[in-house]
Every structure is written in structure tokens, then in C-alpha cells.
């Protein structure tokens, strides 16, 4: 019977102590978080290894569209500049392409619309778990980057956005494998019309191999950089910097 009690104590100690209270302080510990984060690079290497650079995300038909495509994160950019641009149909909007490029550009929405375009009906997967299917029309990012001509040493593309979370501006980034993926587009159209405000007008990035928070909305500036270390918090995105989300959001 003594053994019986010990066993119960053991299980209660392990189950209760370690798994409940212990894991909460572990969850908050930065060194534990660093260890847990270490599997992210393993996941990226493994997934990219079987993915390659050119395989396409499944494309659906118009019959498959979500009746209502949920909009998440910020559904507007709450600044006077953005409101003014929205009011005049983004007539004065210029998408800035800069950083490590030979030829910095300022592209109007009309210019973007006259460039080669791609329309794709794809599934948008939120990190929360839900999915929605929408039709997206836009300019392949590779086309714009080729116009601006990336300089040697450019490894990442950073998207600076008009929206913010309590004064912290939203931004996101991707490496060149995603930037040059055929389905990575600067979308200005959705479901046959112009991109609605709540989905990131005038431009949202589509990064079809990753989760929703990588698809930056309200994009104002595209910057080519050598490293993400010097951009904002250094982790490559708003959710990555401030909330411990993974930069590689392939899963």
C-alpha cells in the first residue's frame, strides 16, 4: 500500500506540478521559448526540401469561393494619410520599391494594373485555424522586383504597411524563394472587383505557401534587404517581433 501511495504522489506530482504550473513558467521563459523556436528552422528546411521553389498551391474554381471571406487583423489603416488616399480612390498612391535595388521605383495603381497580371483562386489559412477561399488578381512580385533589379546581397523582401497595432506599424517579410514564387502577387483585385478596404486596399501580398499573417495588407513600400536583423524588432514581422509567432509560417 505504501507503494500505491507513492505511485499516486508520483503521478500527481508529475501531472499536476510539472504539466500545469511548471509549464506556465516554462512557457514564459525566454530560454525555453528559444529551444521551442529551434524546430522552426528544421520545419523550414524540411518543408522547402520537399516543396522546391515552383510547385503551386492548389487553385480552386469560382464555385468554391467562400460566400463571405473573413477579414482578420486590421480591417483599415487608421491614419489621415490613408483615409485621404482611400477617399480619392488611391489616385496619388505610389507603391515604393526600394532598398537593395538598382532602380528604386514609385508605381501607381494604374501602372501596376497595366503590368502582366495573374488571377488565382486560392485558400487563405489563418493561424487561428479557419480557412477561406477567394479569387485574387495582381502583379507577380517577381515582375516588379525584376523591373527594380535586385542588387547582389538582397536576401529578403520586406513589406511596410499603412496599418498598425496600437502605434506599432505592421510589416512582414519573405525570402527570395517566396518572393519569386509564381503565385506570389501584389494583389489589387479580389473576387472580380477592386481589393476591398477590409482586405488591405490598395495592395495586399499573397504568399500562398504560408499562413495568413504573412499576407501583408495595406502595402505602401517594398524594401529589399540583406538581413532582417536591422528591420524593426529584427524577427521579420509584427507578429514575430511582438508576439512570438514564427517567421516561417508554412505550418
Amino acid at each position: 500500500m505504501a507503494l500505491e501511495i507513492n505511485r499516486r504522489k508520483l503521478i500527481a506530482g508529475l501531472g499536476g506540478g510539472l504539466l500545469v504550473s511548471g509549464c506556465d513558467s516554462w512557457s514564459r521563459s525566454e530560454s525555453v521559448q528559444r529551444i521551442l523556436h529551434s524546430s522552426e528552422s528544421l520545419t523550414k528546411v524540411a518543408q522547402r526540401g520537399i516543396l522546391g521553389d515552383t510547385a503551386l498551391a492548389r487553385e480552386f474554381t469560382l464555385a468554391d469561393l467562400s460566400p463571405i471571406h473573413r477579414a482578420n487583423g486590421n480591417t483599415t489603416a487608421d491614419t489621415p494619410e490613408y483615409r485621404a488616399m482611400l477617399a480619392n480612390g488611391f489616385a496619388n498612391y505610389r507603391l515604393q520599391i526600394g532598398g537593395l535595388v538598382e532602380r528604386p521605383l514609385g508605381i501607381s495603381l494604374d501602372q501596376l494594373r497595366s503590368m502582366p497580371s495573374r488571377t488565382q483562386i486560392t485558400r487563405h489559412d489563418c493561424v487561428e485555424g479557419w480557412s477561406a477561399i477567394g479569387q485574387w488578381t495582381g502583379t507577380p512580385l517577381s515582375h516588379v522586383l525584376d523591373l527594380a533589379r535586385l542588387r547582389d546581397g538582397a536576401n529578403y523582401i520586406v513589406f511596410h504597411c499603412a496599418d498598425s497595432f496600437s502605434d506599432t506599424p505592421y510589416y512582414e517579410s519573405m525570402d527570395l524563394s517566396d518572393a519569386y514564387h509564381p503565385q506570389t502577387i501584389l494583389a489589387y483585385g479580389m473576387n472580380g472587383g477592386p481589393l476591398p478596404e477590409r482586405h488591405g486596399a490598395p495592395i495586399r501580398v499573397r504568399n500562398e505557401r504560408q499562413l495568413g499573417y504573412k499576407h501583408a495588407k495595406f502595402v505602401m513600400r517594398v524594401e529589399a534587404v540583406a538581413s532582417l536583423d536591422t528591420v524593426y524588432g529584427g524577427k521579420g514581422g509584427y507578429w514575430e517581433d511582438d508576439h512570438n509567432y514564427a517567421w516561417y509560417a508554412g505550418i
Partner: protein
Amino acid sequence: MAAIKDGEDPQVGEMAKRHRLSTRLWHWTNALTIFIMLMSGLTIFNAHPRLYWGSYGANQDPAWLQIDNEGERGYLQIGDWQITTTGVLGSWTNSEGERSTRAFPSWATLPGYYSLSIGRLWHLFFAWVLVLAGLFYWIWSFANRHVQRDLSPETKELKPRHLWHDIKEHAKLRFPTGAAALNYNILQKLSYLFVLFLLLPTIVLTGLTMSPSMDVAWPWLLDLFGGRQSARSIHFICAFLMVGFIIVHLAMVVLAGPYNEIRSMITGRFRIPEKREEQQPATVKEETA
């Protein structure tokens, strides 16, 4: 298991070798990993406590399962059927007395406070442990013939009469004694095979189907499970089948003699339990030979 020399059964009261080192290592790695996966999985579920069938599904689409609240009342809804779950699901108070309307309560989630990103860190780290240890165990158990020798049912065990006999014996809580206790009985074999070769692979593959990158690499995953949201639903159902397995498994360990059982999973050695007073049915005796 099955390390017994042919021809000679160990006697009642003797210590006999029962579980291989690979089985023991995998068991305890899994015991920890599965609990972390289940609890961090519930944290992730709490981010969107609704399940759908098909490719897409979000708040405006019909959910086949949802956990939600109406004011103070928490509820679980499956199809048209709804049950009030205040205190446990959808509306509960934590140990500090704060009310929450998250789906699963803090005692069931990892971390105990709500953080989707930290829940994902735990889940996606230990997913690697689950998969790598599982693959290693799979290969190892075929190579050392654990699967073929100890887990694969013999033809006579699959006869309805034998199955029915074992079910009745289990229902009466009469478990194999003597040397027969060293071998898995048919119900054990079937449940371990179910977990090892159906449940765990389905959990891993439906998990991968939720990955947008994996859907690009292996689009057949989407066809196999009927879309990403179906895969998410199946993942959730399988997680609860795993909970069911754990509950039955722990109950069986307790009923069969927890000290001897747990020792055998730690040291590998098992004391042969005494035979019951009454006459054993002849069919069972034959199998112990």
C-alpha cells in the same frame, strides 16, 4: 515482451522480461509528448473553437461543432444538439477566480494562460519528437520483429469465439494470469495496432494537411481527407480517440496491478501474477503453452 525462452514458461511469482528497451523508451517519450500535444492542441483549438467539413470554413460558415457562450452560459454544440457546459467549456473561472469565455479551460491547455503563439511553439516542437520517435520505433519494431511476433494477431485469436471470450473476460475485469500475462491478449493487440498504425499516422497526416506548405508539396493530402477543414476536424476527433485510449489504458494498468505494470514499463521486468483460484477455461490454457 516475448523475450521468454522457448519451451519453458516462467513460473508464478518469478520475475520475467516483458518489455524491450525500445518499447519502454518510446512509451515514456510518448507519455510526455502526447500530453504536451493534447494540451497545446487545445490552446490552438481555443483560437477558433469551431470545426467544419470541406476546404474552407470561418465564422460565417456553418460549423458542425462549436464551443461558445451566451452571456454567462457556456455550451457545446454538435450539429443541432446542444449541451450547457458552463464551468467547463465556453464559460468558466480560472484558479484566480477570473471568468473566461475561451472554449477549453486553463487546466486543460498548455500554456494555462491563453497564447496561440506559445501553444504553437510547444505543439510544433513536440510534433517533431512524436514523428521522429514514432518513425524510429516503427522501423525498429519491424526490424526486431516486435510487430510480427508480439503485436500481429494469430488466426485463432481472430475467431469470433475467442474475441467474444476475451471481451467477456475484460468486462468481468478478469485479466490473463500466469505466464499468459506476459503476452498481449487479442484486445490489447488490436488496440495497440489501431493506435500505432491508424490513429497516430492519421493524426500526423491530418496535422500536415493543415500546413499550407505541405498542401503544396503533397496535394494528395487534401484529396485523402477532403480538404483542409475536414483534416482539421479529423485531427480533433483523433485527438479525442487518443484521450479515450489513454483513459482505458490507465484504467487497465490500475486494474491489472499498477505497481507490477508500471515497474515492467520502467525496468522491463514483470512478476508473473498468480493464477486465479477457479478453473481457467480450456481454450485460454492452450494459448499459454
